[in-house]
């Protein structure tokens, strides 16, 4: 039986004139985006009340492909843009969709401070362990000993454990999945979108072109198999125990889900108190 469809069921969320996208075969970004779109659909989120902000890099392209109010910002500055948006439009749902290099290298400072302030936004970080778009350089997430174009003998810098950084900085919701865990990832994105405050979902994604072929996983399928063999779900674990190492377990799951007043709520409360 041949199945033919002129439209993708998620087309309504996409700017069709910007498709086809630039992502390589085997890349996990399509899956990450798909999970996000299904999360929007299932939560029945009004696209007119949603803003998506991206930085620079392969993941940074997502903002441009979405048919919602979106902003493709400069490298590292997605979170400050999103902060401004949320302050000007407190009722708007604000999502930052960007990569590990963008959010944790050049933009690392902004991430920790938005989390500390508990700015009401959802940050979805696609982590492919390297700078994919510029050709695969060492990133702050590159696992120890992994090879990149700028660490040909293997990385000797300790990488960030993003979920640990998020939790330590004050995020109220922290989860990690790989692009293999599509249903769990979608459910986590839904929870993060529903969460009041700074919610963070790390999405481990294959980058066969720039990272995989230098690290014995030359295809997207190799990396998906690796995820399948190494992923261990441990909900509620202290994220400091969820470091990512080559050959080690990839701990996934929901690590943090707590309640804390958001920045906007604190401001409102302060104003009310001051006016009394």
């Amino acid at each position: 039986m041949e199945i033919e469809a002129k439209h993708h069921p998620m087309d309504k969320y996409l700017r069709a004139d910007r498709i086809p996208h630039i992502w390589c075969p085997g890349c996990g970004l399509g899956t990450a985006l798909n999970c996000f779109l299904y999360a929007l659909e299932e939560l029945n989120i009004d696209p007119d009340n949603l803003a998506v902000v991206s930085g620079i890099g392969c993941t940074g392209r997502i903002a441009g492909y979405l048919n919602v109010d979106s902003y493709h910002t400069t490298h590292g500055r997605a979170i400050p843009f999103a902060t401004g948006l949320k302050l000007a439009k407190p009722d708007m749902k604000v999502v930052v969709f960007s990569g590990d290099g963008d959010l944790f290298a050049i933009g690392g400072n902004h991430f920790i401070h938005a989390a500390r302030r508990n700015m009401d936004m959802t940050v979805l970080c696609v982590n492919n362990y390297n700078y994919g778009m510029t050709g695969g350089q060492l990133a702050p997430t590159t696992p120890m000993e992994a090879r990149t174009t700028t660490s040909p003998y293997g990385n000797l810098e300790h990488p960030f454990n993003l979920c640990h950084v998020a939790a330590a900085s004050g995020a109220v919701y922290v989860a990690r999945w790989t692009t293999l865990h599509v249903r769990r990832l979608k459910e986590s994105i839904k929870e993060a979108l529903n969460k009041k405050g700074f919610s963070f979902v790390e999405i481990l994604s294959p980058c066969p072109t720039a990272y995989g072929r230098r690290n014995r996983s030359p295809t997207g399928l190799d990396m998906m198999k690796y995820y399948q063999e190494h992923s261990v779900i441990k909900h509620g674990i202290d994220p400091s125990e969820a470091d990512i190492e080559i050959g080690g377990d990839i701990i996934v799951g929901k690590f943090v889900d707590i309640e804390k007043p958001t920045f906007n709520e604190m401001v409102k409360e302060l104003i009310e108190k001051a006016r009394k």
Partner: protein
Amino acid sequence: MIQKIDAKKMVVTGDYAAAYGALLCDVDVVAAYPITPQTIIVEEFSTFVNDGITDAEFIMVESEHSAMSACIAAQAAGARTFTATSSQGLALMHEMLSIASALRLPIVMPVVNRTVAAPIGIWCEYNDTMPQRDSGWLQMSCEDNQEVLDMIIMAYKMGEHKDVLLPVMPALDAFILSHTVEPVDAPSSDEVLDFISHYKPHAILDPDNPMAIGTFTPPEYIQELRYQHHVAMNNARKVIKDVTKEFAQKFGRDYHGLIEAYKCDDAEVVLITMGTVTGTARDIVDEMRAKGKKVGLIKLRFYRPFPIEEIRKIAENVDAIGVYDRSISYGTGGPMFIETKNALYGMEKPVVNFLAGLGGRDVVKGDVEKMFEILLKAKEGEAKEEIYWINTRGVSI
């Protein structure tokens, strides 16, 4: 130290030529952050380190701001340093640029000219380097990959000269040079190191002889520092000419100092260009000369210091001057046009500005020919505008 490298002929991209130039100059520290279309420069350099050809320290930092910060400190500690960037990366680095120059640290940093957002683009425009005009760096632009390699070598010699002691920013056009292969003659490492000599820092951070750098300075002192910086930039004019002359004697390629005049001697009109468009313009000059039109070309190599005297001298004998710009200072004109008008102050010559190739749009022979045709009209006092937007939708010429 680097291993001995023999002279060779290579067919390489502009980015490779820049990295190779830094290798031959035996740089000690490279700190960098990736950005298209520059990335290949530092990536190639990291390969040289990987292959053991040089024992330079290479570090991938977390932003361009950090890259320049690391280079400043390394240079202050007595190392010869190198980095490279482009577009947004240069904009982010801006804060550190004036610190590098005011501390008189002769860092060399090629910049691959790429358009600055918004909207985001990756192609060639000069709106990244031109706004760095007052950062106190020597700024210049290359025409081809050979010039990129040669300029990196000359840049160290110019910047480290005792009368200059300033950082140097050679620019190359995004993709047109950065990603395009051309044959390049590379000298041997011995020849290069004989030419530039080993780096002898004028002041270094030394634990046995402590010194504070960049500390809080009251108004009693800063103005004199600014004056000395200004004098150094003026001194650079002579040093640039001397170094290009010495380079020509040693390596056989003459870059003629701050500008290169082409068929200007009996020219009635002259066009000033910078970067890769110069090659196209040279062809057009030849073609128009064949038709009996007396046109000439000035290849502007240095933007800082600006070749005021050189341009005035040529302008004395021509009837109209055109300036091609690949970026715009909104509401006024191209940055090189503004500089040229300033240089020609009091000369009563028509000066016309041509804007083309912004955002990386191709500048083709027909575009340059149109510039010369308008210039020939300007000579007769028939140019309608002062600023012409070439090949621009919504603008008719």
